[in-house]
């Protein structure tokens, strides 16, 4: 919806317009951030219950009692769904992207502020719906975040596959609509609202990452929506898109001729770009922070942009690598495999460039930088298990084992999260006007880095030994029982690491109210958000439209007065 007149002529008054139904992208960004923070604690709690169950399957927990096998699968399903959608697709893009995209390009707000507000509240509704799935009869579904039919399509195929599954699909459908609204806003804003002098090739890499992520979302979420509608129809209207003739618990179901593989194709056509949606903003933040704290321009800005564009582009062509064992044609498998290996190349380029940025820099180790460095390490670790999985012959052994779980957790569950930590510690001063505590930041960093490696690196060993995933109990199969000690280690590591996250939350809230006051540019950084006050005024720049003269990462310019030149500094450094 196009605003009829300049919405920033007057800053809103009144609590509701200022904090609840605000159309100010900064407020909306913070709303998304806190929604994601809530979601991540819910998701972490679910995973804690999972790991406790794996170690002590018969223990009688307070409130929950003894976790049944079906409950374990419910925890697993909801953990995955909540983390992927409400954390990884929400905080990096909806949270930080919303807050800083307009500011970093010199705009007073997003292109469609009212639509922005609607997209947040729609996301919120989606979250309420999915939490509701826990409380309805039968509980939440147990079919995994991937929801393969017929398990997800036949109501009697398992506990929770009744109303709980319908709510799960509905929540995701609502989320799709919210994301599409957001994507539209991001793309239009980036293309149309840049300040004078802010050419595409002078945009910070964070802006590029949010822009490309939005394009991916725009094209992918519609497909998930279709897939979900077909699933709802199979479940409730007796259609047979996905379900062939099946017999469940001795009952012949009324479906015929459908294809479970159709769901897989549609789901993964969305699902693969989704994982790039989850990681690209983190890559943008890593580039931003690494450059700032190395006091050096990003190594190969153009290559970084082209790499992100290639990742986005190829991201739409590799979905079949989730389906090598599915019964899909082996010819298709070969094609998808080749394309998947291709997508490893731009990721490698980015890694080389991050290393190249730090090479011969003057590195400062404030907490944001620690997380950016951690991001690079984790991205390397998680990324290198990719070439194993991308080869169908090796995937025979590794598909549906913990090797895959380790791979995606290191990248999405840790590297992407480290990107968010880096963003939080980096932009906290600008958002809240205070500094977070450095010491506790460092403690949190080291505990989390070591802890997450301790949890997820052993998963590769488990997978190689044939350790299957999504099992609620590893004692039944003899060779799996021999691997239980690894599970024990991972559970202890998880308990410690999850506990360490409270340090972050306490630091966050304490610093919001009691942290030392921040100056306008505590990190001596060059991009536009650091030219304005801390926190920024309602229209971001206090009535002034910035004019951009320089690229985003002009650090260590020979002959300059300071070791950084802001983008708005007219003493032009012409390299772009």
């Amino acid at each position, binding site marked *: 919806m*196009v605003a*009829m*007149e*300049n919405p920033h*002529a007057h800053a809103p008054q009144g609590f509701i317009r200022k904090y609840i139904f605000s159309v100010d992208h900064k407020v909306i960004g913070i709303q998304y951030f806190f929604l994601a923070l809530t979601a991540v604690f819910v998701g972490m709690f679910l995973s804690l219950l999972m790991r406790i169950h794996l170690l002590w399957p018969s223990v009688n927990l307070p409130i929950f009692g003894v976790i049944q096998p079906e409950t374990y699968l419910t925890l697993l399903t909801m953990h995955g769904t909540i983390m992927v959608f409400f954390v990884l697709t929400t905080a990096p893009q909806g949270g930080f992207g919303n807050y800083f995209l307009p500011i970093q*390009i*010199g*705009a007073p707000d997003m292109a469609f502020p009212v639509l922005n507000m609607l997209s947040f509240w729609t996301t919120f509704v989606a979250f309420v719906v999915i939490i509701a799935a826990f409380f309805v009869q039968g509980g939440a579904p147990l079919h995994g975040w991937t929801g393969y039919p017929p398990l997800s399509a036949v109501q009697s195929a398992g506990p929770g596959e009744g109303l709980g599954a319908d709510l799960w699909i509905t929540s995701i459908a609502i989320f799709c609509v919210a994301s*599409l609204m957001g*994507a*539209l*806003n991001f*793309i*239009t804003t980036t*293309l*149309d*609202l*840049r*300040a*004078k002098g*802010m*050419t595409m090739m002078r945009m910070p890499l964070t802006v590029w990452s949010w822009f490309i992520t939005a394009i991916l979302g*725009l*094209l*992918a*979420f*519609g*497909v998930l*929506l279709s*897939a979900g*509608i077909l699933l709802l*129809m199979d479940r409730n*209207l*007796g*259609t*047979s*898109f996905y379900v062939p*003739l099946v017999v469940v618990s001795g009952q012949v179901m009324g479906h*015929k*001729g*459908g*294809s479970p593989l*159709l769901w897989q*194709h*549609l789901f993964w*056509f969305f699902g693969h770009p989704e994982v790039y949606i989850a990681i690209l903003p983190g890559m943008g933040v890593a580039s931003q922070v690494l450059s700032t704290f190395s006091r050096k321009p990003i190594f190969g800005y153009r290559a970084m942009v082209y790499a992100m564009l290639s990742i986005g582009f190829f991201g739409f062509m590799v979905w079949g690598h989730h389906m090598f064992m599915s019964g899909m044609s082996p010819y298709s498998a070969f094609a998808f495999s080749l394309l998947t290996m291709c997508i490893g190349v731009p990721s490698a380029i980015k890694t080389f460039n991050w290393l190249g940025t730090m090479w011969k820099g003057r590195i400062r180790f404030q907490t944001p930088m620690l997380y950016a460095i951690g991001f690079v390490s984790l991205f390397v670790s998680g990324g290198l298990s990719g070439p194993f999985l991308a080869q169908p012959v090796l995937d025979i052994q590794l598909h549906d084992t913990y090797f895959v779980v380790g791979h995606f957790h290191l990248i999405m569950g840790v590297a992407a999260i480290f990107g968010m930590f880096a963003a939080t510690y980096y932009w906290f001063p600008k958002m809240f006007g205070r500094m977070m505590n450095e010491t506790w930041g460092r403690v949190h960093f080291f505990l989390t880095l070591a802890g997450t490696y301790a949890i997820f690196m052993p998963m590769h060993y488990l997978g190689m030994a044939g350790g299957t995933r999504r099992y609620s109990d590893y004692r039944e199969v003899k060779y799996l029982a021999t691997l239980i000690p690894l599970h024990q280690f991972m559970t202890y590591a998880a308990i410690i690491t999850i506990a360490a996250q409270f340090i972050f939350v306490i630091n966050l809230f304490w610093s919001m109210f009691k942290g030392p006051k921040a*100056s*306008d*540019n505590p990190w001596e950084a060059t991009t536009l958000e*650091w030219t*304005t*006050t801390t926190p920024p005024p309602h*229209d971001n*720049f206090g*009535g*002034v*439209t*910035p*004019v951009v003269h320089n690229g985003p990462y002009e650090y260590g310019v020979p002959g300059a007065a300071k070791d950084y030149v802001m983008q708005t500094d*007219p003493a032009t450094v012409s390299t772009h």
Partner: protein
Amino acid sequence: MATYAPIDAIREGQTGRGGSPSTPKPPGGGDDGRGGDGGPNYGARLRRARLGLVCGVATVTMVFVSLTSAYIVRQGLPTYDEASKAYVHDWGGTDLPWRLLGLNTLLLLASSVTIEFARRALTRQVALAPVKSIPGVSLGAENKFPWLGVTAILGLGFLIGQGMAWRELHLRGFFVNTNPSSSFVFLLTATHAVHLAGGIVALLWAATTAWLHKPVESRRIVVDITAWYWHFMAVLWIYVFALLGFAR
């Protein structure tokens, strides 16, 4: 570490208040929609709105692309039939009420024509607005034909027609779960209808902007976007119609 100081020296453009002297339109980069004359820059706003619409169209297109892909796959899928011990195609096919659907198509195409008239009328009004503001100048009786209202009626007519088509299908024994072909018929037409209904809501909103005496430039943007969306709905319907017709 002075960071705020540099831009104090640079004051380009003005905010949306006060009558400051206008600055020339800035080249390069973007434009935040605030023109030099202190008021909103409707040219930029229109461009922005159209860009947003392109994004929206892209996304709805992806929904229909994925539904088409599902349609083609499902149509070609053989399934094992126990009775004949062979793989058969169970697509089925649907006995569509072609005349009724054809009539609905004509209604929708007509509505595209009427909304295009509305869009052009408003574009003309915007162009002529500065002239009309000169006291004493009259452009004669203006044609204030309610094109938007007619479009809404035609759109509603289409939806009613679709409802009638669904009822006719039921009478012929085709329900959403009769066979894969009928499932897709209902799915595709319903998805299109839902999006068209959204378009009608937009039309009603566009109509109310006239009554609420919004500036003519704002009205023009709303009508322009609604019109392009509406044309997209017509094109989409032609596509669905052709798919159901030729890929039976």
